[in-house]
């Protein structure tokens, strides 16, 4: 198990253009499950591949377990990687797939069987050892990919969006399996995804990236409740945080904090909200509409509510946001700033 660090890591593909990864500094903690989260093109996969040794950095350093590994090939870095497609060798049986890293690292043949069976039992695929990858389901393939990764007892696990090729139903159970696996094995893991639900559910910490720049590195609570800038604020949460501009600040509040006014609202900022659309999702309602009156006329806003039967389309209602749930961002930089008193009308 080891700690992965990057120092000022940069990767530029085309000269003169913005890099895919720009001056990223990070340090994992022992045994943690760190998630790289960002939209496509944010550089999260490039970052992962540089750590794996599949891309060479333009500048900066990568350290694994305290050693600078920039010049080491992937095989010498003691990492294991699970690819988006799992990259199982189609012509080899499951057993041979799992044994391949041992063969490649010239582990003694007598030890192969023992190690493969250990890895297989860890993932519950002992019965599948004779099958070929094309005979397996998506979930089984993920387990084989994990077994192949764990059999070398690597210092770090790297996972590149392994759930995105699974269909929605399978994804939830596969995700749970991954979490259980990580708890059992405890290896430092870096997980790349564009799905913020996955990131929040799985990560011990989440690193939010956009255009190759790290916006925030923190626990799920940190990034959700205390976003560092407007990008993080709107990337996490579905529907995204509502943002309104007021003077030289942007004020944000999450849809779940935007509720109909009630006597128990407490210290809250009032808004006039015209209901334009309601979606019933079973467990909750998503109500969207526009603000009416005052400085925010016509601004589109989302709300998440447990019940919305009595809200009719076209109604203009009194809604409030508790004062303490407001987040403030600098209008020019987008960065988070201290709360301040504002005139709302």
């Amino acid at each position, binding site marked *: 198990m080891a700690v992965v660090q990057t120092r000022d890591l940069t990767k530029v593909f085309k000269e003169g253009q913005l890099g895919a990864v720009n001056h990223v500094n990070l340090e994992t903690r022992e045994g943690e499950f760190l998630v790289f989260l960002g939209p496509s093109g944010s550089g999260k996969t490039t970052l992962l591949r540089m750590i794996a040794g599949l891309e060479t950095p333009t500048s900066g350093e990568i350290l694994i377990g305290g*050693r*600078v590994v*920039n*010049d*080491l090939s992937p095989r010498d870095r*003691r990492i294991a990687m699970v690819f988006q497609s799992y990259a199982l060798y189609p012509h080899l049986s499951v057993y041979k797939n799992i044994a391949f890293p041992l063969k490649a690292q010239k582990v003694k043949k007598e030890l192969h069987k023992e190690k493969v069976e250990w890895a297989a039992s860890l993932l519950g695929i002992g019965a599948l050892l004779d099958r070929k990858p094309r005979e397996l389901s998506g979930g089984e393939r993920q387990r084989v990919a994990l077994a192949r990764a764990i059999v070398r007892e690597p210092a770090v696990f790297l996972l590149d969006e392994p759930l995105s090729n699974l269909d929605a139903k399978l994804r939830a159970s596969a995700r749970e399996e991954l979490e259980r696996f990580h708890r059992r094995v405890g290896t430092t893991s870096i997980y790349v995804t564009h799905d913020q639900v996955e990131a929040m559910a799985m990560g011990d910490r989440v690193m939010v990236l956009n255009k190759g720049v790290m916006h925030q590195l923190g626990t799920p609570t940190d990034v959700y409740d205390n976003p560092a800038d407007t990008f993080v604020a709107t990337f996490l949460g579905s529907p995204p945080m509502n943002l309104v501009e007021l003077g030289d600040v942007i004020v944000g509040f999450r849809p779940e904090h935007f509720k109909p006014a009630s006597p128990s609202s407490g210290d809250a900022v009032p808004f006039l909200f015209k209901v334009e659309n309601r979606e019933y999702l079973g467990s909750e309602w998503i109500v969207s509409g526009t603000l009416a009156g005052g400085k925010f006329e016509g601004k589109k806003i989302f709300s998440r509510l447990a019940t919305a039967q009595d809200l009719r389309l076209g109604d203009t209602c009194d809604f409030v946001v508790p004062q303490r749930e407001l987040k403030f961002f600098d209008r020019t930089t987008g960065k988070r700033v201290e709360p301040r008193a504002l005139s709302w009308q």
Partner: protein
Amino acid sequence: MAMAIPRRFISRRIISRKIMGRVVHILVLGTFTILLAFPFYWMLITSFKQNVDLYTMENNPFIFNARPTLDHLKFLFNETRFVRWLGNTAFVGVVVVAITLVLAVPAAYSLARLSGRWGERLGIAIFLTYLIPPTLLFIPLSRVVAYLGLQDSLWALILVYPTFTVPFSIWLLMGFFKSIPKELEDAAMVDGLTRFGAFVKLVIPISVSGILTVVIFTFTLVTQEFVYALTFISSESNQMIGTGIPIFLVRGDVYYWGALMAACLIASLPIAFMYNLFLDRFIAGFTVGAVK
């Protein structure tokens, strides 16, 4: 785990391994390229060397020991039937391409779209006929040609060449047609076209590049063919370039190497250019089943 090695040593090792890899790569490529392309380079040089230079053993063959000359080219174009052979080949090529298109395009479409299970099987059977080689059929076909009174006529070739151009073209086009989404034709038929109308007005225009590929490859198959051209055509003026050059540029036992090489080059290069343009389609035609 290895001891920490100072970075500068690691870098040097990596760099020298990279350079080694580069060198090996260039050596391998260079060797293969030279081995494969050398005969054509040799054709080029020989075409312009004076006979005195060519036929003196002691002369270094890699350089021009006498001034380069156009004599061989003049000989080729003025005193042989080379130009006529080019014309013959072009004529046969064009007509065979036309016949092939008329036979193969509808057949490929029908087998790809209209015939379901039977279509697959028939398509495979047609392709298998491509495996019956000219060197098996040339003897009976020579009799058929004689019977029809077509001996020593280009029409014999025009009659027989589609036997290998059509199966290959059907195979190529079947793969091509199958890759066109069915929805397009369905939409056209919902809009009122008949199946055949959809074929003519929709599918054929879309398939222009596939059809063009078939045209090019049929033409190259025609120019490369040897056995039938050798068997059916005897007189000098009716030769194709594939047979005329090796046979009639040899008078008695004397090989006119200068003219021969020039002719080979002139005949080969245009075909090479055309082939290269459509190479990817060609590969797709051969590998359509295996690469999925």
